[in-house]
Structure formats: C-alpha cells, structure tokens
C-alpha cells in the first residue's frame, strides 16, 4: 500500500505539470464550463502535446502511454479549471467503437479530428421504450439498396445538440429475439431527417435530448459490425462506459462540512450538532471509500488489469449521497431552506441544485436497481433475472400501455 509514484511515474508527472503550467497559462485558465470553443482549443493543444487520449497509439493521435500515466495527467489537469466533458462520451465510448469496428478509411477520417476536439460525438442507444432494457430498441433501419433508411426516436442523448457525429443502435430485424435483430451505424447528426430536441429536466436544465429520425438515409458503409450483430458492438461500447465513469460532481462531504461550520443550528453552529456529526461521518466514510476504491482501480489499471463491473458501486453510492447531502443542507435551513435563489441560498444554491439533480443521477447511466443487478450477477455470480423475452420474436413482446 503505497501512494508514492514510482520513479518513472514521478518523471511523467513532473513533465505533465511543467507542460500544464506552460500551456494552461497561454490557453486562458479559468472556469469555462459552457464555452465549447475554449474546450476545443484546449483539446487541440493537448493533442499536440500528446496528452489527448494518452493511452491510444500515437499513429491515431494518442499519446502511446499507460493507463497510470493517463490517471496522473488527469490528476494534474484537475488542479486547473478546465472542462473536458464535451469529449467524454465521444472519446470514451463512441470513437473506440469506431476504431474497433470501422474500416481503415473511416478511422483515418474520424479518429484524428475527434482526438483533436475538432469533432464531437454522441451515443444514441436509449429509447423511450428501452431505458434500463437497452436492447428494447424500436428505431427501425430498413435496407434500401446500398443504403439504410432510419425511422424512430432516441432519447436521453447527452450533448446531441452540440455534437457532429454519433453512433446509433437500430433494429434491423423484428422477427428474431430482441438481441439478435440490432445493427450499429455511425452517422452525421446534421443529416436530413434528424431533429434534435432538448429534454426539459425537472431540475430545470437540458443536458439531454430527444433525437427523432424521419427517413434518414445512410450508407451501408457506415455500418459498424455485421447486420443484426449490433448487440455485441453495443456491449463493447458500454464496457467502455464503465471506464469513462467519473465522479458525480456536485456537492460532497467537504462542502457540507464547510457549510455546517457557519450554519445556524437550534443551539449554535450546525457542525456542533451531534446528530449532524454522525451523519457527516458516514458521508465522509462513503466518499473516502469511493476515493480509495478509485485508487485500487488505478492500481489494477497500472498492472494491466481491466476494471470490471465493480466500478458500478461508485455511482450508486455517490448519487444517493448527493441526494442526502443536498436535502440535509436544505432541511438544515429550517423554513429558510426552501429558498433556492443562488443569491440567498448557501454555496450559491449548490445544495438545492444537488437536491434537484440527484434524482437524475440515480437513473442516468443505469439506475440504482440495474447497477445492483449488475453487481449481484456479474460480480457475485448470482442468477440472472428470469427472461421471458429471450426466445420470443421482438415484435411479439408485450409492451406497456
């Protein structure tokens, strides 16, 4: 158990730090979560420095480095307020799928621009009828000569409104069981017939979109993997999702600790309330547990192991904690707690925002319930659910009202 870098790691870290100091300054440090142009410029600069996609081969614009180097750079980059979230899904999930399944010409066309941040990618899997049940896809693609014609609707598509390309999973055969009739394609999100509509969330914002397809025509050359063999491709993509999972963001134990030190309890600062202290300790223990679990994951990565579904525990714990911390701080205000105005609420309304955002975090990317199933089945080896839909043709499956 050792937190110290090896000599090689220390050298890499020092170089990364020097490079960041030199380049961040030039680039315009500071917080710019909604400035895509700046995010793209920074991504391009990282690509030049070999710090974009550190573990990818250099021939594809990557850094040719190790997973641990990627982690080290991430740690150092996190000391500066830069926002790479525009590229997470594309570089974490979509482009790896393109690299694994597309022909060389396609790869040459798309990988470089994606690494440099010139083009942003989205993942289009979820549908209204298939949230947890990803394979319950109804969006149809019908063959027409060398083309396919797509009709249907995707939903919960993060970043579709600012993305250039996407990978899309569609049903090409409804007469076989549902996992057997799916096919994966890449496509241009600016293509005719595609309409992108933001989803108004209960928390007020719109991080997600609905994407409607009306007679969208794409070439068979855009296919990734075999016809009706898309589920295997999707599993490849989703496996990479786990590796891309970050922290929950939002407020944590340190935030509510700072808040409680100055917040009024009935009898002095909230931080002196024994009940609050017991709860705070539990949150701290959870957060530290997740932080230290990530250390174990990084250790496994550094040894060349592939982290498994264990990482599912992170979101379950973090999302529920986020909801509890947000609401506890809200309730600590007593009557005043209802006020969410950032000018009046503690931490510019961050606890209130957490209370409204956490319900979404408990659902997005796998609900609490699905993630527990994954742990139970894939980590602990307990039996899978009884699948009534396994052997039936997709078109015969029962659906809701």
């Amino acid at each position, binding site marked *: 158990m050792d937190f110290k870098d090896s000599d090689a790691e220390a050298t890499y870290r020092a170089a990364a730090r020097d490079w960041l100091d030199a380049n961040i300054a030039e680039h315009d440090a500071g917080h710019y979560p909604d400035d895509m142009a700046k995010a793209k410029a920074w991504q391009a600069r990282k690509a030049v420095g070999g710090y974009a996609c550190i573990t990818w081969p250099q021939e594809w614009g990557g850094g040719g480095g190790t997973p641990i180097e990627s982690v080290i750079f991430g740690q150092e980059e996190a000391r500066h307020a830069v926002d790479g979230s525009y590229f997470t899904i594309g570089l974490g999930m979509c482009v790896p799928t393109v690299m694994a399944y597309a022909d060389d010409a396609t790869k040459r066309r798309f990988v470089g621009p994606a690494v440099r941040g010139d083009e942003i990618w989205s993942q289009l899997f*979820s549908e*209204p*009828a*298939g*949230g*947890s*049940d990803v394979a*319950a896809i109804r969006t149809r693609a019908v063959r027409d000569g060398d083309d396919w014609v797509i009709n249907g609707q995707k*939903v*919960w598509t993060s970043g579709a409104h600012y993305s250039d390309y996407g990978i899309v999973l569609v049903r090409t055969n409804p007469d076989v069981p549902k996992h057997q009739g799916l096919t994966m394609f890449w496509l241009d999100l600016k293509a005719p017939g595609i309409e992108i509509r933001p*989803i*108004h*969330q*209960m*928390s*007020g914002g719109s991080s997600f979109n609905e994407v409607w397809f009306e007679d969208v025509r794409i070439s068979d050359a855009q296919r990734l993997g075999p016809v009706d063999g898309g589920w295997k491709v999707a599993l490849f993509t989703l496996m990479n999702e786990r590796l891309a999972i970050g922290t929950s963001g939002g407020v944590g134990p340190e935030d509510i600790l700072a808040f409680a030190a100055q*917040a*009024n*309890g*009935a009898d002095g600062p*909230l931080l002196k309330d024994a*009940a609050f202290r017991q709860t705070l300790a539990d949150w701290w223990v959870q957060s530290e547990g997740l932080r230290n679990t990530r250390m174990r994951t990084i250790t496994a990565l550094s040894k060349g192991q592939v982290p498994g579904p264990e990482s599912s525990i992170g979101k379950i714990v973090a999302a529920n904690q986020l*909801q509890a911390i947000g*609401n506890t701080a*809200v*309730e*600590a*205000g*007593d*009557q*005043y*707690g*209802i*006020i*969410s*105005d950032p000018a*009046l609420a*503690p931490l510019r309304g961050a606890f*209130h925002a957490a*209370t*409204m955002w956490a*319900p*979404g975090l*408990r*659902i*997005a990317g796998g*609900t609490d*319930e699905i993630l*527990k*199933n994954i742990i139970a089945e894939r980590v602990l080896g307990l039996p899978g*659910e009884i*699948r*009534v*839909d396994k052997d*039936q043709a997709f078109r015969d*499956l*029962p*659906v*809701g*009202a």
Partner: protein
Amino acid sequence: MNFDYSDDQKFLKDEARKFLGAHCGSDRVRAVLDDPATAYDADLWKAVGEQGWRGAAIPEEFGGLGLGHIELCAIAEELGRACAPLPFASTVYFVAEALMLYGSDAQKVRWLPRIAAGDVIGAFATSEGAGPVTARSVRTTVSGGKLTGDKIPVTDGDVADLIIVLARDGLYLVEKGASITAEVLETLDPTRSAARLTFADAPCEKLGSDDGIAAMQAVFDRAAVLLAFEQLGGADRCLEMAKGYALDRYAFGRQIGGYQAIKHKLADMYVKNELARSNAYYGAWALNAGAAELPLAAATARVAASDAYWFASKENIQTHGGMGFTWESDCHLYYRRSRQLALVAGSPAAWRERLVGQLEMRNAA
C-alpha cells in the same frame, strides 16, 4: 371507538376529491409553476372559497361551517393529493388557527368571517433567516404600536392581506400596507409563493400573550397536524403514480412492477404511508378533542408525514426512471411540494427534537 373518518366525513372527502379532480388537474398546478408572476391559482382559490372549505373548522358564530378539525383534515388530505397551488395552509392552518387560539373576540369577529368568506389571504411570518426560529433569532420589535423587522421567508407573504408576525414580545397582526415591502423569493417549489417581508414601522395589533415563541409553537402544533394530512395526501398520490407506472411500463418483456426491487420499494412506501396515516389520525383526534396530547401527537404526525412524503416523492421519480426526471412528468411537482411542506412549519429534525422534548416533559410529570 371509531378510529376512522365518519361516513359524513368520508362523503365530504370524496366530494373534495371529485371537486379537485375537476378543478385542480396537474395542468393547473403547472400553470402556477411555469409563470413566475403567478403566486397561486386565483380561480381555484375562488372556487374553493365557494365550497366553504376555508371555514370548515371556524365556528358558525364567526362565519364558518363549524364542522370541526377532522373535516378540515379530510380536506387537507385532498388538497395535498392534488398538490393544490393555493395559500390555503397559510390562511387556514396558520392564521385562522392562530386567531381562534389567541384572538380577542373583537379580532375574531373582525377577521374570521372574512377568512371564511374568502376575502382574506393570511400569512404567518416567523423566520428571519437560516436555521430554526428561536428566542435568540427573533429581532423584530414593536414600539409604539409599530412593528419593524425583516422576515424571510414568509409563505404567501407577497399576496397576504393579513400577516401574523412573530416579534420579540409576542405575535402581532399586521395588515397589508405601505409600510411593508415584499420581495418574491425563488424557491424549490414555485407552485407555492414565498417572499421576504420588510416591515418599517408597520401598524400592528397584539395577538395573545407576551410569549411569542410559545404562541408560535402552539400554532405550529395545530398546523402540523393539518399539514400532515396534506403530506399524507401527496405521499399516497406518489404511491399511486408509482404503482400505475410500474404496471404500465415493461422492461425485458415484463411489467417493471413484477421485479422485487420495485415491489419492495413500493411496499416500503406503503408501510411509511400507513404509519403516517395512523399517526395523522391520532393527531387529528388530539387537535379536534383539544387533548393535552396534542404537542406530542402533532410532532409524531409531522415527523411521520414528512418522512413518508420525502421517501414516496423521491422513489416515485426513481420508479419512473428517466421519464420521472423530465419536466413534463408530474413526479417533480410532488418532490418539490414535499420539500415545501416539510419546511414550512420547521424542519423534520427540529420536530424530532421537539418530540423527544415532549417525551421528557411527560416523563418528568
């Protein structure tokens, strides 16, 4: 012994549900949610007035129906179920109750009939900032019949005609007027209005004793029972929504309500709601009977109801999955309201503390 609504009360409750079903669909709640300039649904407020609900527990001599508090509880349950965007609680559970508890005959004669008739919206102004209201936190003072202070938040303060204000030496009646400045506040539940009220030498009239904190708490005890019924109505509606969705929605070829994770989640909701209902009934009995057990019964009812509504509203969203997180789903209306109701008479933690304090007093007696 009859630990249930009477047949007459059940009839009243059924009628209230039908009325609100017709006049307070979620489209009406959303109209208030979506328009920051609208504090409440004025048409519904008027229609509710015509039903006489505001005077259900006000004696006939003061212009009410004189039915009693159990009847008011039944109405509260339905208002909570409908998530009604109205200043009903402020006006009826807080202000009318405070007047009945502490008002002089003259004050009652002046105000209660107007509340019952629907001419007056009330607000109960106690908080002056973050944290529980205590003797130390109150800085509002009265001098020469004029009240000066800063109250935040005051639920329905921006639309109130009559405000009962907690000052250092008691509760005061203050009428809407030029010496009051209202600033509307952004809150977690935009379907209910709240404001910061600044009083600058506002003419006022004493209500009851000099012990303002004790008087406030006595009003809170009464309001807590009534609010518990609103919370219960909301929590039951969440369970119903979750159950409906669990039956309608299919995943992996099965209704999601067939998966034990969902079944047990909804069973947990049911258990919490039933405990909350039973405790609310006991609170209703104590309120209606003027029993000495009221402070303990009110705390018990409020803690149970706050817990049940929070759980039901958040797990209702979870049951709905992604759909539950959208603005277009009604789930968040209840989630927001559960926060509003949990805080408007003081936080659940403060009520738990009060509950144990009551147990200590009981055991010391």
